[in-house]
């Protein structure tokens, strides 16, 4: 049938998925519609309120890409430390890795098979 | 780079004609003797290298024009691929001069041991010449470019 991909163990149909998304969207729209009607854009309501302090500049509050997964990187320090060290950027290391893989494949296929 | 001494330049003046002549000999006799377009082109390009070394940076720019060499390179390649395209009536790369023998150019086909005749081998000599022109100008461009080095923007 059109739009149904049989994978052999299940199926995937984008059509059904889109119908589901539309239904969910309608429900969300209804919920949004029940919200506070007094909200107005561009009035005093939307201004950020920082305990009476002046608002800092945009440059200061921008979260930079480096800081996005800071906690994650900090938690996996023991994985990322050696990993960054391995990606040393020296061309000799790149070739060494190739030769190591070649040796392993030689031993497995040439030696054991 | 500064030009080399007068002795070197004089010898170069005499020698480079012979080197280029020998290179073209190798190109043209590619289907009869060891050699061919690539080897002959490399020989000719070595004459360019000799000139570049002997005369130095300033003089060589007036002697060899990179643009002209570039155009020669493209025309050699275009000639080569067009020769291949010409066989397309049968098959790409078909040796239409040697096999049908309808056109009396390069169409002799000797058999067995023979001293060799230039008028043989179909499109092979033409391809040799095309490739020879391409190689000599390509190597010439490389030699000139690497010899002259970086040019800063205006």
């Amino acid at each position, binding site marked *: 049938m*059109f*739009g*149904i*991909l049989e*994978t*052999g*163990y*299940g199926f*995937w149909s*984008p*059509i059904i*998925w889109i119908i589901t998304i539309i239904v969910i969207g309608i429900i969300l729209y209804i919920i949004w519609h029940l919200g506070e009607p007094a909200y107005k854009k561009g009035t005093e309501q939307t201004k950020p309120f920082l305990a009476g302090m002046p608002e800092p500049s*945009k*440059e200061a509050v*921008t*979260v*930079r*890409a*480096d800081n*996005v*997964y800071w906690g*994650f*990187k900090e938690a996996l320090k023991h994985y*990322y430390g050696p*990993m*960054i060290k*391995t*990606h040393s*950027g020296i*061309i000799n290391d*790149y*070739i060494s*890795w*190739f030769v*190591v*893989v*070649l040796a392993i*494949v*030689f031993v*497995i*296929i*040439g030696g054991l*098979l | 780079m500064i030009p080399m001494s007068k002795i070197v330049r004089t010898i170069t003046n005499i020698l480079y004609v012979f080197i280029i002549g020998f290179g073209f000999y190798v190109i043209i006799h590619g289907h009869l003797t060891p050699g061919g377009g690539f080897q002959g082109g490399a020989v000719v390009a070595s004459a360019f290298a000799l000139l570049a070394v002997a005369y130095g940076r300033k003089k060589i720019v007036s002697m060899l024009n990179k*643009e002209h060499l*570039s*155009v020669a390179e*493209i025309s050699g*390649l*275009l000639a080569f*691929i067009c020769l*291949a*395209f010409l066989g*397309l009536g*049968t*098959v*790409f*790369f*078909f*040796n239409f001069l040697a*096999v049908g023998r309808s056109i009396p150019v390069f169409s002799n086909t000797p058999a067995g041991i023979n001293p060799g005749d230039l008028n043989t081998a179909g499109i092979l000599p033409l391809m040799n010449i095309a490739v020879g022109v391409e190689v000599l100008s390509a190597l010439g461009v490389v030699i000139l470019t690497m010899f002259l080095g970086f040019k800063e923007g205006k």
Partner: protein
Amino acid sequence: MFENLVPHLPILIIAIPLFGAFASYLFSKVSDKARDVFAFIVLGVTEFLVLVLGKDIYTNGLRVYTLGATSAELTAPTGYIMPVRIILEVDALSIFMGIITVTVAFIVFIFSLKPMKEYSGTDKYYTLMFLLLVGMLGIEFTGDLFNLFVFLEIASIAGAALVAFFTHRDESAEAAFKYVVICSLGALLVLFAVALFYGQYDALNIAYLANVMKYSLLDKIAFCVLLCAFAMKAGSAPMHMWKPDAYGEAPGPVAAILVTASLVSMYALLRVCFTLYGRGLNTEVIGWIITVLGLLSIFIGVTMALIQNNFGRLIGYTAVAEVGFILLAAGVGFAGFSSTGFGFTALQAGLFHILNDALDLGLLFLVSGAVLHATGKRNLNELSGLARNMKYTCIFFIVGLCAVAGLPPMNGFASKLMIYESVYQFNPVFSIIAILASIFMLAVFVKVFYSVFLGPELKEFSSVKEVPASMLLAMGALAVLIIVIGLCPDIFVNNVINPAARALIDYGIYRGVV
């Protein structure tokens, strides 16, 4: 008249871009406009021809072209057992890859019309682009091992020169040097393997070699060399390190087409495994090796992508992970070498993922090129809030993001679902790792999306304008392709992927031409 041309299409598809490469350099000496028009015509004609050939091959089966013989179908000389000339052999898989290659190249060409005007040396840029296309097409269509080496070198050299195109940047020279050293090492080892075959069987034709193969120790060693060389050129971990370097420093459109170039190496790997060796060696062990390489690539690629700060480099690491998915599927497909069951599904999924990968990563690299064109920056730390001024680019990025991360209903989801399900039959743990990596991938691109397009608008970007229409058109074409494939994956899988996978499994047809 046109019917007479169809037998010649395999060579014309390679020779016309090659002619275009030579002639476009001449044209650019006349004027840039003439060159652009000429290149457009040549690429359009190539695209048309490759589609015609595709239709022919999907209906009539494989096509053979003998270069220089008295007839195109005459693979061996009359009354003789083996081929002495170079043979082009185009089956469903080759033409599948060919259509991907030419389409991506066409779109990339349209994209690079505007942004490359700002740099010097555009004449060389287009010539090298054509040559890269020729190299890839040559690898795909050839039926001769030495010829494959030659075209591998053309693709490598053109790719390296394109990586170095931004000579005003310091790092591009370094990236190009690494790229050319790695590629030529791989190509030389391929040549070594070719020499091993030549010494044993005195033949260079893939089909003939597959027929007479004795699977001796020399053949095994040649297989190891070919496997490692092509895996390195495809960018599998732990031999992937050149990939983020090269992709990060290349111009955006060049990186987009280099993705396809590494997928062409993947094609060569599949061709060697399935067609040249087939069931001769222990498929289970080799399948395990390829699978493990794929898993390593997925894991390392995704985790390293998370901490990158350069736009191109980040997508380069995700490209490593995507190649890992393909290797995983191909390895499982090779382990269960059959035309039914999970092995076949995995193989189909791998081929489907090749198609999706070329489109998705191509789109993302084009977006990175567009961002570079608009702002002149690639560092994610310096970018912010571009969605306000670059609405369409932002939308295309969302499409690419969803596709690469495997969010429904994009095409990436369909192929990844097939990979998960078939790999689950092979080994459940692998499947779970792949699913986790896919979630990581989403996290990676959420980071990029947040830091480039969301966030407060900075003063320095307040004057940024949307990129020109030709670039939007190119990105839009890729996005539309992605959405169309995502919405009707069954049509593509049944009509395009299935014959290509069958061409790999039923290797007897390919081998039977000589």
